[in-house]
C-alpha cells in the first residue's frame, strides 16, 4: 500500500464547516414543533422523598407535561449496570427519576416539558417537593469512618467493592528490603467540563414506529441498542446520531444518563419532538466526575534505588451510585507500575459510595492517580537515598529487549496486562535533552541568585490504549469517484474525519479531500462500541485500513476486466486505476465503481457481489501500550504561593502516527487539562456534600494566559498488535501532569524539603505547605 497521506500533517476535512458556523451540535438540530425540557433536581445530598406536588406546574401556560417517577412505568426501574465485576457486590444504579430517596445534590426528581426552556424552568420553580433530609457523607474518610451515614441503607460502611491484585511475594520483598518509604496521597475530584454540555433530542414517528435520537454521546451504538431494548423497539427502528460533539473527555460515554431515557419517553408520549440541553450549573451535578482517591502506598528499594516491591491500598470515591463498574480503580491499579520493573506488587482498593455525583472515566481514567503515586514514591526514595531522581527512574526502566513485557496483572479489558512494545530509556533521554536537564543545576543556581525559585520536574508513564472488543468500518467508492467511510465510533474533536480519510486515501490512491467519513450515526453503521480509552484511531482506524484494503483488491479485480490485465498488475493512484508501467491504459476509480454495478449481463462470481464496497472489523487481542515522559520548569512565588509554568516538554511514543498535527493537538489539550487538575480545578463540597463550585467562576479551567507552550518530541515504536502499528494517544497529555508539577514545585523550594502528596495544589494550599515546612526544619 503506497503510503502518501499516512503520517502527513493534513489540514482537517471537518474544519470548513466548524469555522463557518455550519457545525451541527445537538442544540443546533432543527426539529419542527420541538418542545423543550428541564429537570427538577434534588437540593439535598441525602434525603427521603416524601411527596411531589406538580399541580401548580402542570397548570402553567405553555407546560405540556410534568413527569415524576410514578409516570415512568418500567422505565423507572434502576438503570442498566455496565461492566459488572465479581468484586462489585453492590452494583447500585439510579432511576431516571428518583422514586423515594435522593442520594446526591442534582439527582433528577421531576422532568418538565414545555413550549420553551424558559417556561420549563418556571414550571420547575412551581413544583413543591417534600424532603426528609438525612445526614450526608461527603469525603472518602467520612464515608468509611465509624458510624458514617449510609448512602445505601443496605451497604455496610458504604463499601461497594473490594478488590486486590498481586504479583510476586510482596510481604517477603518488604520484609527483606533495606529501605521502605511510606506515603499517603490524596487526589481531589475533578470535572472534564467539555465546552458543550450534554444534550439529547428525540422525535417519534408513531406511524412508522421509528425513533430518532440526537445525543451528545461518545457511544451512540450502545445507546441505540439499550433504548431499543428498554422501549421494546426493534434496533432497526431506532436511530441514534451523535452529530458534532463539543468535547467528550470521558463523561459523555455512559449508558444511560436519565435524560437519555426521559427525552425519548416524553417524545413518544407527547408525539412531539423534545429537546433537553444541560446548562452549565446542571453539568456540575448531573454529569459524571472522577479523580478522587486516597492512597496509602509504600515502596521497598535496595541501596541503589532498585525497586523490590510496591504496595498500595486505596479508597476510590464512586459517588452515589456506580453505573460504570470498577473501570477507574482497576485502571489506576494497573497503570501504577508504569514503565518500571516491579517484581512484587500489591494493589488493593475499596470503591466507596459518597453522597456526590457519580464517577466514571474522565480523560486519564485513573491513570493520573496511579502515575502520581508511583512517581511520588520514586521521588521520595531518590531524596532519601540521595540518588538523582532521573537516575533512579533509569535504573528501574523496562529495557527495549524485554518486550512483550508481562506485568502480571489483569487489565481493564480482562486481558493480561502485557506491554506490546516501547523504548522507555530513549524517551527519558530525549526528554532530559529537550529540558536540558544536564544544565539545570547551574540554571537553578543562577535564578536563585536573582531571588527566583525555579524548579524542574520529570515524570514517566505508560498508557494502556486501543482496547477491544472491536470496531468496524464500511468503505464505499461511488461512481463519482468519491470515497465514503462509515464507522460506529463517535467523534468529539479528535479529527477522525481526516485521520480515517488519510488511511482510506492511501489504500485507494485518492486525496483525503475526496474521502467523506461518517462517524457516530447508527443509521450509517450499526456495529461498534464507542470512543473512549484512547481507542478511536487504533481500533476503528485499523478497521478502516482493512476495509479500504479489501476495496482496493475488489477495484483491481473489476478493473482487470476493463483494462484486460491481471489484477496483480493493476495499480491505483491520483484517482485513476491503471496497468502498472502503462499509466496511459487507465480508467478512473469512478468508472470502475460504475462497472462494478452492472445493469446487464452476468456479474462474475469472484466479485462476490456488486460495487466497490467492503465492511471489515478489527478486534485487538489486547490493548496497545503507549508511553512517554513529561518534563517542566516552573517558577514559584514563595510569598504568594503563585505558580507559573515556564516550560513544558512532552516526549511521546504511540507507535506510528497517522497525522502529527492532530497528535500534537491531543497532547497539548491533554496537558492543559492536566494543569487544570494540578493547580486550578477543584470541586469543593461542604461536609453535608453540598457542592460549592458549580460555576466557571469557582471551578477554574485554565485559560490561554495560564497554559504554557508545550514542546513535543516523538519516538516511534510501532505496535505489533495491529496492521497500522499504531497506539492510542488521546490521554497521554493529561496523565503525568500532577506528578511532574509536584516534583517541580518541591525542586523549586528545595531547601525547604517540601513534601507534596496531594493534588490539586493552589496558591493558598502551597503557601500553607511552605509555612508548615519553614516551621518544622
Amino acid at each position, binding site marked *: 500500500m503506497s503510503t502518501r497521506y499516512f503520517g502527513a500533517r493534513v489540514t482537517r476535512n471537518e474544519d470548513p464547516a466548524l469555522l463557518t458556523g455550519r457545525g451541527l451540535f445537538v442544540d443546533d438540530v432543527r426539529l419542527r414543533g420541538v418542545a423543550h425540557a428541564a429537570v427538577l433536581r434534588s437540593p439535598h445530598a441525602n434525603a427521603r422523598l416524601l411527596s411531589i406536588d406538580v399541580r401548580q406546574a402542570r397548570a402553567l401556560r405553555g407546560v405540556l407535561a410534568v413527569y415524576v417517577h410514578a409516570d415512568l412505568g418500567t422505565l423507572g426501574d434502576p438503570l442498566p449496570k455496565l461492566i459488572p465485576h465479581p468484586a462489585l457486590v453492590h452494583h447500585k444504579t439510579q432511576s431516571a427519576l428518583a422514586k423515594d430517596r435522593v442520594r446526591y445534590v442534582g439527582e433528577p426528581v421531576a422532568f418538565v416539558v414545555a413550549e420553551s426552556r424558559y417556561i420549563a424552568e418556571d414550571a420547575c420553580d412551581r413544583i413543591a417537593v417534600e424532603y426528609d433530609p438525612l445526614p450526608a457523607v461527603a469525603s472518602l474518610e467520612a464515608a468509611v469512618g465509624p458510624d458514617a451515614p449510609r448512602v445505601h441503607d443496605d451497604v455496610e460502611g458504604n463499601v461497594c467493592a473490594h478488590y486486590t491484585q498481586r504479583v510476586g511475594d510482596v510481604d517477603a520483598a518488604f520484609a527483606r528490603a533495606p529501605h521502605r518509604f511510606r506515603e499517603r496521597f490524596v487526589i481531589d475530584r475533578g470535572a472534564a467540563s467539555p*465546552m458543550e454540555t450534554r444534550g439529547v433530542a428525540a422525535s417519534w414517528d408513531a406511524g412508522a414506529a421509528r425513533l430518532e435520537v440526537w445525543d451528545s454521546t461518545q457511544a451512540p451504538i450502545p445507546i441505540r441498542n439499550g433504548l431499543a431494548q428498554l422501549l421494546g423497539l426493534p434496533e432497526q427502528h431506532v436511530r441514534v446520531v451523535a452529530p458534532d460533539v463539543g468535547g467528550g473527555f470521558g463523561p459523555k460515554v455512559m449508558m444511560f444518563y436519565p435524560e437519555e431515557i426521559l427525552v425519548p419517553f416524553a417524545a413518544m408520549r407527547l408525539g412531539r419532538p423534545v429537546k433537553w440541553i444541560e446548562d452549565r450549573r446542571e453539568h456540575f451535578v448531573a454529569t459524571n466526575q472522577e479523580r478522587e482517591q486516597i492512597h496509602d502506598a509504600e515502596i521497598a528499594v535496595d541501596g541503589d534505588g532498585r525497586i523490590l516491591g510496591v504496595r498500595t491500598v486505596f479508597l476510590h470515591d464512586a459517588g452515589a451510585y456506580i453505573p460504570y463498574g470498577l473501570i477507574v480503580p482497576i485502571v489506576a491499579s494497573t497503570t501504577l507500575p508504569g514503565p518500571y520493573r516491579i517484581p512484587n506488587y500489591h494493589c488493593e482498593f475499596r470503591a466507596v459510595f459518597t453522597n456526590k455525583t457519580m464517577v466514571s472515566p474522565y480523560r486519564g481514567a485513573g491513570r493520573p492517580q496511579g502515575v502520581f503515586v508511583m512517581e511520588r514514591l520514586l521521588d521520595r526514595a531518590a531524596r532519601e537515598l540521595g540518588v538523582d531522581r532521573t537516575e533512579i527512574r533509569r535504573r528501574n526502566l523496562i529495557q527495549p529487549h524485554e518486550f512483550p513485557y508481562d506485568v502480571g496483572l489483569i487489565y481493564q479489558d480482562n486481558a493480561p496486562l502485557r506491554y506490546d512494545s516501547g523504548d522507555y530509556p530513549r524517551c527519558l533521554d530525549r526528554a532530559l535533552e529537550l529540558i536540558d536537564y544536564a544544565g539545570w543545576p547551574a540554571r537553578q543556581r543562577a535564578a536563585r541568585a536573582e531571588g527566583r525559585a525555579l524548579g524542574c520536574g520529570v515524570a514517566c508513564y505508560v498508557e494502556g490504549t486501543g482496547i477491544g472488543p472491536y470496531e468496524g468500518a464500511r468503505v464505499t467508492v461511488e461512481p463519482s469517484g468519491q470515497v465514503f467511510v462509515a464507522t460506529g465510533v463517535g467523534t468529539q474533536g479528535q479529527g477522525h474525519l481526516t485521520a480515517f480519510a488519510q488511511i482510506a486515501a492511501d489504500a485507494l490512491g485518492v486525496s483525503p479531500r475526496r474521502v467523506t467519513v461518517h462517524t457516530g450515526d447508527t443509521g450509517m453503521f450499526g456495529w461498534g462500541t464507542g470512543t473512549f480509552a484512547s481507542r478511536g484511531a487504533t481500533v476503528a482506524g485499523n478497521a478502516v485500513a482493512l476495509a479500504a484494503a479489501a476495496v482496493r483488491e475488489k477495484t483491481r479485480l473489476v478493473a482487470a476486466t476493463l483494462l484486460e490485465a491481471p489484477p496483480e498488475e493493476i495499480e491505483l493512484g491520483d484517482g485513476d486505476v491503471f496497468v502498472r508501467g502503462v499509466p496511459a491504459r487507465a480508467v478512473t476509480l469512478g468508472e470502475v465503481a460504475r462497472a462494478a454495478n452492472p445493469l446487464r449481463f452476468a456479474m462474475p462470481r469472484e466479485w462476490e457481489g456488486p460495487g466497490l464496497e467492503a465492511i471489515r472489523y478489527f478486534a485487538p487481542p489486547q490493548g496497545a501500550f503507549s508511553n512517554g515522559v513529561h518534563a517542566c520548569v516552573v517558577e514559584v*512565588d514563595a510569598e504568594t504561593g503563585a505558580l507559573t509554568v515556564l516550560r513544558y516538554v512532552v516526549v511521546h511514543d504511540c507507535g506510528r502516527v497517522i497525522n502529527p498535527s492532530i497528535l500534537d493537538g491531543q497532547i497539548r489539550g491533554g496537558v492543559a487539562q492536566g494543569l487544570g487538575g494540578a493547580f486550578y480545578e477543584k470541586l469543593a463540597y461542604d461536609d453535608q456534600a453540598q457542592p460549592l463550585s458549580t460555576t466557571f467562576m469557582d471551578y477554574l479551567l485554565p485559560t490561554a494566559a495560564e497554559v504554557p507552550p508545550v514542546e513535543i518530541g516523538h519516538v516511534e515504536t510501532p505496535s505489533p498488535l495491529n496492521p497500522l502499528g499504531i497506539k492510542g494517544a488521546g490521554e497521554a497529555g493529561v496523565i503525568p501532569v500532577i506528578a511532574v508539577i509536584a516534583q517541580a514545585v518541591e525542586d523549586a523550594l528545595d531547601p525547604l524539603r517540601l513534601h507534596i502528596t496531594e493534588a490539586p495544589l493552589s496558591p493558598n494550599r502551597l503557601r500553607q505547605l511552605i509555612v508548615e515546612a519553614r516551621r518544622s526544619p
Partner: protein
Amino acid sequence: MAVRKIALRINGKTYTGRAEPRKLLSDFIREDCGLTGTHVGCEHGVCGACTILLDGEAVRSCLLFAVQAEGADLATVEGLADGDRLHPIQQAYQDHHALQCGFCTPGFLMTTLALLRDTPHLTETDIREALAGNLCRCTGYQHIVAAVAAAAAALASGAHPDAYPPFARRVGDSVDPARKERKRNAANDRRTTGAASTRRPRRT
C-alpha cells in the same frame, strides 16, 4: 409575558422576531434568526463561546437580552467567510490546527476579529491575555495563539482590504485599523502591574 417586536441586523442582513424581554440575545440569534453558529457554553459570562460583535464590540451574547439589541448591527461567525472563501482568520485557524471539537471556535473567531481590527500588532502575551476570555478544553490554546499571530501578519500585509466588513466595524470607525492604531495614544502602556499569577511566562 409582554412579547416585543425586535428588529436588528446580523452580518448586514435584517432580521425581525418577537420575544419576551427575558429572552437572551444568544437564544434569539440561534432560535429566532436560525443562526446556530453562535454557541452557548455557560450562560454566566465566563466561557466566551457565545461571543459576537454588537455594533463592532466583542460581547457575550448570553449576558444581553435580545430587546437590548433592537436596531443594532451584529456580527456572527456566519458572516466571516465569503461563500467558500474563508476569511484570513478562519484560514489561519485551519492551517494551524487551531480547533478540534469546534464548539468554542466561533467565539474565538469573533474575539480575534475585533482584536486584530483594533490592535493589528500584538506580542504573544497580548494575544494570550486577549484570548483569556474564551475557554477551550480541547486544544491547550497554543495552536490558537499561533493562528491569531499568523492572521495578524496576513491582515497587516494589506492583502485583504475587505477583512472588516461594515457590520464588523465599530460605529464611526474608519476602515483601516492600522491608521486607527496610530491615532490611538501611544501612552497606552502595554505592561500591566499584575502580581505573580498574572506575570508573563518567561523563557529561562
